[in-house]
């Protein structure tokens, strides 16, 4: 890894899934209020955090994302009654599976944000970006995806 002082600081790529009714509106509010927050998160709007198929998260990591943010309405506030609870259960199980695969739990964040919480949304994203920056790049799509002729062959010591 490049942690020499001359090189640019590592800028993590974070894929953020937000729900249409609360967290996307929170991001929108942060924008209209001209609050600045780290540009590392690429937001994808879903109708509901319950729409989040864990496949999306796995695909994000497989494709080279350094972290994934899942965001929805506060518990009890879901536009679709209780689907954010479903998102929460999926999130907790997903975190365990990803940890077994070597993806640190800190690369995954669940954030409840209402449409009025633009400031909280911006602050939480800033702290998440720093948290991921400290972890360093994940580089899933660059490690051993194809096997080089010799580099990958392991000489087993006697």
């Amino acid at each position, binding site marked *: 890894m490049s942690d020499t002082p001359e090189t640019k600081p590592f800028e993590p790529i974070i894929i953020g899934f937000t729900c249409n009714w609360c967290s996307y509106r929170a991001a929108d509010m942060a924008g209209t209020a001209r609050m600045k927050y780290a540009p590392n998160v690429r937001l994808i709007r879903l109708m509901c955090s319950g729409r989040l198929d864990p496949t999306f998260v*796995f695909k994000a*990591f497989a494709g080279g994302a350094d972290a994934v943010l899942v965001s929805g309405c506060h518990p009890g506030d879901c536009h679709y009654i209780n689907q954010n609870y479903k998102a929460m259960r999926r999130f907790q*199980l997903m975190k365990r*599976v990803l940890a*077994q*695969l070597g993806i640190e739990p800190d690369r995954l964040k669940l954030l409840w944000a209402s449409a009025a919480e633009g400031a909280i949304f911006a602050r939480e994203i800033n702290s998440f970006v720093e948290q991921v920056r400290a972890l360093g790049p994940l580089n899933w799509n660059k490690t051993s995806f194809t096997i080089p002729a010799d580099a990958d062959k392991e000489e087993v010591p006697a």
Partner: protein
Amino acid sequence: MSPKNPKTVEKAQAKPKFAMYWAASCGGCEIAVLNIHEKILDVDANFEIVFWPVAMDAKYADVEKMEDGEITLCLWNGGIRNDENEHIAHLLRKKSKILVAFGSCACEGCIPGLANFSPIKEIVDTAFSTISTDNPENIRPQPHYKMPEGEITIPTLYSMLRTLDQVVDVDYYMPGCPPESHQIAAVVELVIAALKGEAQLPPKGATIGAGNSTVCDECPRKRNLKTIKEFGRIQLIKADPELCLLEQGIPCNGPATRSGCDARCPIAGAQCIGCYGPAEGVVDYGARLIAAFASVIDSEKPEEIDKILDGLVDPAGQFYRFNLAGSLLRASKYARTNGR
């Protein structure tokens, strides 16, 4: 397989050629092929078996001498674990018209693919220096070894097991660990009919010898959309024989698993472990199961959810028992970086 009568020799040469190869696999697929009983005689009557290391003597050199595309049907079972597997995969791809990824190992990695959780060193340590291993000098296999007679070599392990289609172009996929014999028999019949011009082969890339739906669709157990407060292990629970296993808290992989086995395990009282691989439309098998398992949990409190999840002792192993190498992430970080 080489009749002495010149007339039959001529006839034999006109027959299409058949090959079957095993890479990183257990040999269960070949047993499943032999389990098609008397239909195996149809295979012999309609094909000339040219290469099948587990069943007959043949050398790699014999295959190398063949024309490209000379083998009509090649069933490949096993994942790509070392340089020998990879070399033969490229060789048989070149020499075969129809290359079938046969069985779970070739399609998605299967049990040998579980090695993708660990770096090579851990795998070798487990094989050569556990308590039950008698290896006082701690001898390890060496890819090259100098003997008085000259240097000898064995294939070199790769840090990740790959599925067949991650290495070469594959024509058809036949899932299952092993594929059910009646499914194999049906496929053999279809290929023979197609060779005679009586039937059409499915489009390239198709999954053959299996259903398109899920094991749940074939399972006769009743579903009541019940949610659960704890996961249990099947050997510790007295399961109701009529009800859905997952709704009784038994981790059953049916919701994401491809149909085609007639739901044998759930009918027999055991949970589906997912050997038929992802159902049609499932991109990542484990991710689909995460969604399914999270849906049956009856709780809205994070701490309680965590407690319920503790009942799943090894979630990644549960969700990727057969599918790790074929999944989106393919291997753990430890295997990818080989522990470095």
